[in-house]
């Protein structure tokens, strides 16, 4: 078994969170969520100390890939990131998800894939996310994309977080760090994408959970959300995380009929398509 699978198995034992295709590994307790105020305006040096707050760093090197269709942007991002994350070693960059898979080879492993939502090959963003997630690679969306439906579909497909391109690189670094540790990066954009997502109905979302989501989506920090809900900060985080889990359960990362079919075949609900009988090649 690969490291990844073992980690996943261990986690599912503790938190009961084994979703097929859902690479967001929840560790049974909430990690630090994307609290933007903590990272705003931090310089790289300061960031280093803050990073220690994030919890024990499971990996001493960070394997990162960035998928973005413009090399210049990639270069800029990667150069900037290395200042914040010294443990970042030779990040991969690719213009499309297919290129990434080609560069990665069959058994490559990455801690995080930073994925631009709109790519030059006009691929469907949710499909891109799904492909990566299915391959066991956590996905961080990096985009200026405003359309709620697109973002929510990406989350439904299993993305672990979203960072706006206009944010400071410190924020991106923080998100990468969190996701590389198997947590989801929850911020206002994430909450906004889930809130009222029409094609992602969660029937049993508790009112408190929905309210937490709504308040968080307005951009308030966790403390303020908790205060307005008159609960402790940890409780508010709990609400958010529960909401996240419910959404994850309700959203199978299958996004096209073919994939549903393939999924169904894999799950054994449908018989595998018979290979036509033909004489073997000479």
């Amino acid at each position, binding site marked *: 078994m690969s490291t990844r699978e073992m980690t996943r198995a261990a986690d599912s034992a503790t938190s009961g969170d084994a979703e097929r295709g859902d690479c967001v590994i929840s560790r049974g307790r909430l990690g630090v969520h994307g609290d933007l105020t903590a990272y705003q305006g931090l310089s790289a040096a300061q960031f280093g100390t803050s990073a220690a707050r994030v919890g024990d760093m499971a990996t001493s090197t960070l394997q990162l890939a960035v998928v973005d269709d413009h090399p210049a942007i990639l270069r800029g991002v990667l150069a900037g990131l290395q200042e914040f994350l010294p443990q970042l070693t030779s990040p991969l960059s690719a213009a499309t998800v297919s290129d990434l898979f080609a560069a990665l080879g069959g058994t490559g492993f990455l801690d995080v894939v930073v994925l631009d939502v709109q790519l030059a090959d006009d691929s469907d963003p949710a499909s891109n996310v799904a492909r990566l997630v299915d391959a066991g690679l956590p996905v961080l969306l990096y985009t200026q994309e405003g359309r709620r439906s697109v973002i929510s579909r990406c989350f439904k497909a299993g993305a672990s977080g979203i960072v706006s391109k*206009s944010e400071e690189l410190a924020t991106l670094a923080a998100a990468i760090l969190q996701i590389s540790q198997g947590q989801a990066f929850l911020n206002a954009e994430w909450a906004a994408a889930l809130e009222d997502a029409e094609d992602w109905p969660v029937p049993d979302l508790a009112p408190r959970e929905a309210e937490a989501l709504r308040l968080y989506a307005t951009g308030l920090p966790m403390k303020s959300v908790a205060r*307005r809900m008159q609960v402790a900060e940890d409780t508010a985080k709990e609400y958010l995380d529960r909401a996240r889990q419910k959404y994850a359960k309700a959203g199978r990362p299958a996004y096209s009929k073919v994939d549903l079919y393939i999924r169904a075949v894999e799950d054994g609900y449908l018989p595998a398509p018979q290979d*036509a009988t033909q004489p073997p090649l000479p």
Partner: protein
Amino acid sequence: MILTRSSLYRGLHWGACAILVMLWLGAAGQQAFSPTAYPGVTLPVVMATGAAIILWCLVDAIRTAEQPWALRVAVVFTFGCGVVQWWGAYPPSAPTVLPPLLILASASYGVAGFALGPIGGVVVSVLAAGTIFLARRDLLGTTESALTALPHLTTGCLAALAIAIMARTATKVETALGQVWEERETQARARSLSAASVRWDSLIHDKVLGALRLAARARTPADRAGAAELAADAISSFRVVGSPASLGDLSDAPAMLALVTDDRLAEDGQPWGGDLGWAAPAWFEGQLRRHALRLGLHLHWEVQADGSTAILPSSQARAVMDAAVEALSNVARHSGVDSATASGAFEAGRITLRITDSGRGFDSAQVGAGRAGVSRGIVARVAIVGGTASVRSRPGHGTTVTIDVHAPSPRGPFATTQTWNPLDFVAIFAIAAVALIDYAALALVHADGARSLPVLGACLVFAYLLGTVATFTPRRFAPAAYAAGLGCGVLAFVSTVNLVDPGQIGWHYWFVGITNPTIAVLMFRFPSRWALATVASVVTGIALGQAVSGGVHVGVLVDTSPQLIAFAMASWGIRTALDGATAYLNTAAAGLGRLRVATAALEEADRVAAERTRSLGSRVEAMLRRIAAAEELDASDAARCLVLEAATRDRLVAGPLVSPAVAAAVQVCRARGTTVVLTAESPSAGLASEAAAPAVGPAGAPVVEPVAAPAAAPVAEPAAAPVAEEVLESFRRVLVAALQVAGPQARVLARWRPGRDRRLGSISIVGSSTVDRPEVREVLQGAIDGHLLDVDLSIDEESVLVDVRLRTGVAAGMGARTATLGHVAEDSTN
């Protein structure tokens, strides 16, 4: 529209010319074998004139003249011949011989239906038949003359009727096709608009904003070079207003198609025609080559296309495409070689595609449940659309992926089944029945010319039987055609033998006329060779009959054959016109429609590009040009870049929200050091870009300082109620107030997002510097318009939250928009 008419009329025009030629030859032949006594040079002059007119008709046909003047003149001329014959009463060699002038006269009604229209055709038929009747009355007696004139009348009416039906059908098809293509065009426009908007917006996001950001933060020449690259890229995508080369008049489809290359059409990866089901081999080839190139493969294309375009539903075409691409990816990934061959065939309604490589292969018999990419992906994708796919490989022997998809039976305007309906021809069959009765009557009138009455009766019955067989046996049952053809020959033989005097020309040869309807039906319902074979068999039958009775009389053959041939050719002409028109219609209209759709899509895309370019503004463009020139920017320039970037981003992401007042307030606020993030969406924005409804892009905002630009014409929002704009304006006022009170180092996040429960949006200010100010609550409260808005203002030690809702009771304008959120967004990948 023009295409339909011209293709149909072209066929008819040629048919008419053929009839003229046949009858001219018939007249000449008739005169050669059974001369009528014409004075002096009358007949040669007439024939010469006729020949000249026919030549003119042929020229007209070649020129595809719009108005068939030559044919009209021919009608008048040939009718005149009939009148001349009547007037002159020139005696034929035998009473029953049809004088050449009358043969020519029959051309008039044959051609009038086309030359003068259906009603003209009927009128001319009546007149011509009348003239023929009158011309022969003295020789044959009233009854017989009438009976012999009647077939001319019925034939003429049949021809006119047939033409009327064809024209009507053509119009029907045209209209239907036209409508279909209108709809497709609208859809294509909408799709293209939304796709182009998305593409353009992401272009701006990535390249314009990226370039500005990179330039502002550039510290090394490498950074500057990167920014320059981005900026240059962005600039090259800008479109000048009034852009694409005008595509002019769309009547010359092939030339137009050449202008708009397949490469550009195939950019969005859609099979041409989108939902329409084109699967042009060229499209497949283009797409596969692109993918092969990207994968670093060399692709040999050996697919046979038989000229017709395989018409598949787009889901099938896409499935084949996806499976083929996956096969190519596997070649790239697993085979160890860098070339692949695509072979197979594209036929109407069926695609067989084989991707072969000569790489290291694998044991395909072993692989079953494991390798998702190889077996599952390809086979599953194709199986889902009802096709079959197989992957065959042996270690060391390469791999072959075979994809085989049949189209379901075609429907709609792409059906290559005939557009004319046999039911349309009920009228024709009815008239044919009348003609049959007429011939029967003639036969009985001339019963004395027959040796044996019972044989005559049997032949009559047999003739009816043949006609019935030809009309009613199912088309697939080809032996029916053989039987009918053979039967006609037998009928001809027997009837000829039955004649007392086979050498005598006249209505004893009633059975020639009676086979005409059979021939016509055979021509329509079976491949044309059967009708022509029937003609041959009748002529053979007559000849054999004559031979058996005592000697072949060529004159008789010459007298009777042209009629048969002319009838067969006329039917053939009509049928070819119909069939040809249908097929040509489909192809041409589809080609034209494809062009229309492509043009529409490109127009929309270019329009969006032009609008967005304009709305970007000259200052952004100027700055981009400086960046593209890799100019070194000083600190103030860098700051300008960031300001421009932020302002552009605001307009793109929060278009509806950003008014000049808002933009100014944002700028001031940012100058203070506050972070301001704005987002806005119109309620339909999320839905429309997926659904096939006319999309609403993020509306281009009006002029915004400091990035001044001429006001961009915004993409109109569907039925924006006036109330909605007021509400938005009141939200803006609150926002401006919030921006005014936000302290330095604070973070303002304003969202305009109409949603459930009358929610409109929120404004949050996070940062203690704001909260510490006492006047915050006052200022914010003051900005709220209590009539329209219901605002929840909450302030705690770290943050201010303004939660904005629509006041209950405010007009349904907003409510309707809010209600659209109740729709479940359509899954665009379905």
